[in-house]
């Protein structure tokens, strides 16, 4: 086998499809070895997700936050940096939206806009310190953004058991019900999905067609070349990180205002972490976020369905990791071609 220097989009797509299929088959085999009827489980999951409107709505409710958390990671990846803190920024956005929702009295539309702005700002604020540290001090952003996830989760625990605790709710530690709800698009499915899809389009346009987007991609490809060409690399890093954190924060706001309607521990549902896999699978391309996040939404939805068969909810998390590992290996293997046969000299 010989390695080629570059591969085209079709080869990359093929490698993605093959590696995802491989990981799912491997996962299914492990399930089968554990004594489950894997083909039937898979068929049930597909039927429950796509079979009727309820299933589709549930899928949409998971898909929407994954689009945004995936987009948040992809935005930063374009400048070559990892925002692993989507989970924390999601929490920050949820907290800010809850505070606004509980304390501001306004007409529904104005309140929702305020909550969205607060969510975006809180997400951006949550990544501010890692962003500054990365841009000016070259501090590894993977670790700083990730560690803030734990801080955010603890902050939510503190708020839900302390200052924001709803005294009327004795069962779970959660905030009071927020009086503002995002109007529904289709029964349970709210307009958050449309907002998420729209934002993907905006970001895709921004990166493909604006000077700002060009500069970011340039800085991502080669920071030194970009700086030499006059790009303000540090400013672009700051802007990209704040946008990334803001998008994840907005996802938190949509979850609070559209789906959960109050702040509670575990509200992020690992969306922040799965978003990393979405962006990695999508290769940081904004439009490819859509199929990648749909796949992950399907997997998470499968996890919920499989719980009724006694499968641990964590098993699916392990499966998503397997998909990511397989995709990373598959991407490298796609560069190999059968070696050209040497012709014997005439």
């Amino acid at each position: 086998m010989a390695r080629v220097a570059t591969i085209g989009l079709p080869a990359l797509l093929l490698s993605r499809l093959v590696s995802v299929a491989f990981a799912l088959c491997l996962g299914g085999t492990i399930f089968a070895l554990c004594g489950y009827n894997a083909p039937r489980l898979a068929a049930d999951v597909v039927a429950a997700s796509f079979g009727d409107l309820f299933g589709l709505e549930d899928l949409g409710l998971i898909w929407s936050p994954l689009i945004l958390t995936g987009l948040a990671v992809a935005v930063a990846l374009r400048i070559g940096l990892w925002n692993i803190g989507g989970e924390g920024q999601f929490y920050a956005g949820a907290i800010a939206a809850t505070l606004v929702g509980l304390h501001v009295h306004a007409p529904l539309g104005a309140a929702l806009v305020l909550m969205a702005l607060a969510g975006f700002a809180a997400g951006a604020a949550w990544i501010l310190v890692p962003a500054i540290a990365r841009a000016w001090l070259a501090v590894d952003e993977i670790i700083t953004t990730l560690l803030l996830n734990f801080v955010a989760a603890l902050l939510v625990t503190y708020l839900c058991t302390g200052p924001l605790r709803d005294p009327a709710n004795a069962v779970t530690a959660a905030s009071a019900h927020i009086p503002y709800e995002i109007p529904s698009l289709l029964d349970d499915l709210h307009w958050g999905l449309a907002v998420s899809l729209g934002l993907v389009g905006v970001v895709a346009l921004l990166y493909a067609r604006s000077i700002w987007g060009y500069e970011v991609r340039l800085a991502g490809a080669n920071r030194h070349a970009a700086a030499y060409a006059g790009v303000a690399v540090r400013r672009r890093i700051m802007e990209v990180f704040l946008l990334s954190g803001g998008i994840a924060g907005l996802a938190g706001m949509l979850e609070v205002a559209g789906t959960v309607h109050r702040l509670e521990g575990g509200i992020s549902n690992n969306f922040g972490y799965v978003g990393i896999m979405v962006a990695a699978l999508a290769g940081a391309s904004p439009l490819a976020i859509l199929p990648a996040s749909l796949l992950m939404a399907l997997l998470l939805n499968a996890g919920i369905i499989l719980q009724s068969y006694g499968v641990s909810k964590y098993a699916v998390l392990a499966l998503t990791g397997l998909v990511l590992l397989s995709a990373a290996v598959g991407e490298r293997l796609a560069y190999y071609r059968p070696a050209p046969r040497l012709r014997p000299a005439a």
Partner: protein
Amino acid sequence: MIELLTGMLTTALLAGGVLVIGALGEVIAERAGVFNLGVEGLMALGAVAGIVAVAHGAPALLGLLCAMLVGAAFGCVFAAATVLLRANQTLCGLALTVSGSGLAAAVGQSYSGHPAASVFGTVSIPILSALPVLGRAVFSQNPLLYLIWIILPLGLHALLFRTRWGIDLRAVGEDPAAADAAGVRVLWVQFAAVVAGASLAGAAGGFLTLAYINSWSDGVTGGRGWIVIALVIFGGFKPLNLVVGALLFGLITALGFVGQARDWPVPPAVLSMLPYLATIACMIVPPLLSRRSRTHFGAPASLGMPYFREQR
């Protein structure tokens, strides 16, 4: 006051010990040029492996060995992907963290909340254990702590900086092409380093559940794997510096516990944030103070880059 100091030091040595084991493992892998972001997942797997082993009748030491073996096994998978197939190390590390944590949580569900069936005991050293503060905190503890805090770091330091084997390992991390030309088997060294590091990460998890927390619960590793990675950078990739950093983190963790036990007017959740905030501070403050450490001072030159022989 004496009681307080003793309690803090006792906890600090145990909490910091987990970090020392994991960080020494990560140093081995990173010195060979492989950035293993999967420590958190390996630690979770080791933690649950230890608990499962003792639940089936194994003594604590055997449980720790099982944790190491499980860490090594998953390290082999990671090494096969990143070293042999040269897949993206960041992606594979994140994948290992997620799937390791998920798998550990799935396996550990039925063991959650029960105390470990067998844990490490303490051994009091005569005479020394009668000393104030240090006597209880240092000289009547789990004997493994001496191994972790003194013998392992010194041993690894000697191995890395005083042996032929260590030079080969570091050469691979700095410039694999040069090492290759000098006859070092680059891929073999990287593979071995990753597996050795992963087995220590597994051991760190086993130590966590069998010697420190003494039970398994979901999310018991609580980001320690990430603190380990930060600690390696903070310690400048040197085994002996790590020990100092780990003691600092241990003390900060202990401070949180003391605060909770003594009813300080700070909410427990806020006290629990301390180790994470301290880690972030430790990442940011050194580069803020010195220009030299801004370019990852001490990091192996080829860290994170897969080696392709034909691209020399």
